[in-house]
């Protein structure tokens, strides 16, 4: 390890993060008080439905939210002992790609179609390391090999459009890991891929995490993917974390009504069901969030208190936090 090993087991800790977008129709509170911690060498999955603020959370950590219209209204992002929100642009540029790397939701936006994948990987290396182009190319080939791209010596000179979706995603992972980052943020890395290719990429990410000893923040809306890769899980709803737990607990004993409903409503290969349980309604508009608990219009357990009081994340068991006024539910409703 080259990094000065902080005694702290947390590589990343996000506290009360708020990222807003100011537009003509009003202020969209895309991320509105998000907090979680990612221990070193572990995988945290951030899971939630479209628009709940997962990508904006990731982009905020990377310092990539356009300002304006974006505005970071509060929070701390403590990475390896330093608050990233306090770093100047140069320090942040140095960190990004180097110690924190990200794979973006749309693969084609992060690969430039005009350059070979080899040039693009080498470029990232040259920007941060004092080595020559020859060495950088060697390293790029090595990276392609490590993401199990066959015949990397030939593939390195290909253009992105010549690669299949799965190969392109491998090339992106190679680029992200080229500088041996401590933290990899992967935003829906397999959503656009077929299931058989998704299985390959998830397997690869698991192996690489062990090989490189990095921490992984994986963003997904797929609870199946969460079950496959997560050590820890944070469930997001309408700009907030509503539940945090280790993966086994989250699936066995979910505590938030949203998590319970979501898990109940997905059809399962392992059980026979006639009618699927349903979470009624839809996710709220971020410009007009409900008062009180943001989930209350869809929640079968909601009462008058839920319409008025906004619940904070609180522990219901060691390492298990839930933002629900009726938690633990079994005591209130059963």
């Amino acid at each position: 390890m080259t990094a000065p090993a902080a005694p702290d087991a947390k590589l990343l800790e996000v506290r009360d993060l708020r990222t807003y977008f100011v537009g003509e129709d009003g202020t969209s509170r895309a991320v509105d008080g998000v907090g979680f911690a990612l221990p070193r060498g572990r995988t945290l999955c951030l899971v939630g439905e479209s628009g709940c603020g997962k990508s904006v959370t990731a982009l905020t950590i990377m310092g990539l939210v356009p300002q304006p219209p974006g505005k970071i209204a509060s929070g701390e992002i403590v990475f390896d002992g330093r608050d990233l929100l306090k770093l100047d642009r140069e320090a942040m540029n140095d960190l990004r790609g180097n110690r924190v790397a990200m794979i973006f939701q749309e693969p084609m936006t992060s690969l430039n179609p005009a350059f070979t994948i080899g040039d693009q990987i080498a470029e990232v290396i040259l920007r941060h390391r004092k080595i020559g182009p020859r060495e950088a190319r060697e390293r790029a080939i090595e990276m392609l090999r490590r993401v199990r791209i066959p015949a990397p010596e030939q593939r390195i000179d290909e253009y992105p459009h010549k690669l299949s979706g799965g190969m392109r995603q491998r090339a992106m992972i190679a680029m992200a890991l080229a500088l041996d980052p401590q933290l990899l943020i992967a935003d829906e890395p397999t959503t656009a891929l077929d299931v058989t290719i998704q299985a390959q990429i998830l397997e690869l990410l698991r192996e690489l995490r062990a090989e490189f000893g990095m921490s992984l923040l994986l963003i997904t809306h797929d609870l199946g993917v969460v079950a496959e890769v997560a050590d820890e899980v944070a469930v997001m709803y309408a700009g907030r974390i509503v539940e945090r737990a280790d993966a086994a607990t989250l699936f066995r004993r979910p505590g938030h009504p949203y998590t319970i409903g979501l898990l109940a409503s997905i059809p399962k290969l392992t059980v026979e069901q006639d009618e699927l349980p349903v979470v009624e309604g839809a996710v709220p508009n971020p410009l007009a969030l409900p008062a009180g608990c943001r989930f209350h219009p869809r929640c079968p357990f909601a009462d008058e208190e839920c319409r008025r009081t906004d619940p904070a994340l609180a522990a219901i068991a060691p390492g298990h936090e839930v933002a629900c006024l009726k938690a633990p539910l079994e005591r209130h409703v059963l």
Partner: protein
Amino acid sequence: MVSLSNHEATSAHPILEVAGLVKHFPVRKGVLQRAVGQVRAVDGVDLTLAPGETLALVGESGCGKSTLGRLVLRLIEPTAGSIRFEGQDIRALGDRELRDLRGRMQIIFQDPYASLNPTMTVGDMIAEPLMLHGVGNAAERRRRVAELLGLVGLMPHHARRFPHEFSGGQRQRIGIARALAVEPRLIVADEPVSALDVSIQAQVINLLRDLQRRFGLSYILISHGLAVVKHVADRVAVMYLGKIVEIGDKRSLFAAPRHPYTQALLSAIPIPDPAVKRRRAILQGDVPSPLNPPPGCRFHTRCAFARERCRKEEPLLETAAAGHRVACHFWREVPAMEPIRAGIDADPQLVRLQGFFRSRRRDERDAALASAGART
């Protein structure tokens, strides 16, 4: 002739019969737009569908599912093969008859955002197929629109609104209401829930099922979500590079998949249960190009069981069990797949909490369905 399965044999009059269906798309290049090759999108497909039945088409991107669905509705013309709907050869129909037919077959598209006209009110959009088929006068059509909105769990006043005022799930319901307007017999649903939020998918899946039970609709459900398919379908056809490689009753196919590709597909699905332990056969490589599919068995380049014969000779669909056919030379030797079992024991407390999420609007919807049923 293919042998009929039990299911097919019992339904004397299938609503749909497809035989030897082929669709090749020419690939053009250069200024002269010369055809330089053929995408063999659908390459010899036979199937039948009984009234009230759901057949699911599954397989990876580009295997020809949407093309097959569009061929069945004659939205595109086949290169070869026959399609019979309610006994009629639809390739032989003239314009007038084709318009009649369109009333009895409808399609629901994947993208609820792109498939609705943004400049029309929801009411006009649902009434459009009624006008096209000359159903009722303006007042009757208005009544029918209100009824259809009720059927899909929306409100009569929604008729005056525009699509952008609705969420994804609501838009998909509008698409379904529109498809139902002219009382079709067959609906092709092309990825009807893939673009929806997870919590909305169940709402739409339940709705499609209720409507089917009520009106005896037949569905061709195109989906890459195998859990959705297991929940909704009666029979499943697995496609690979334009061909059906396995087809069977849902139970038989999920309990004992025979084709190595079906097994790989099933074992690749991430299961929302961290306690599930399974031996995974992760398929290597990518799907080959449909421009130039591999000779012999098209799956041989990725198959763990492939031998010399697979590279030379194309396997035909053979009956492996009642109502279950598979196209693999060596299906008898492919080891049975371990069944996927729940790893988490159903926690009784969790089951009771989940019980609170039974659809609250179920009763209202039942009432709406009952009154609509009484009318027809």
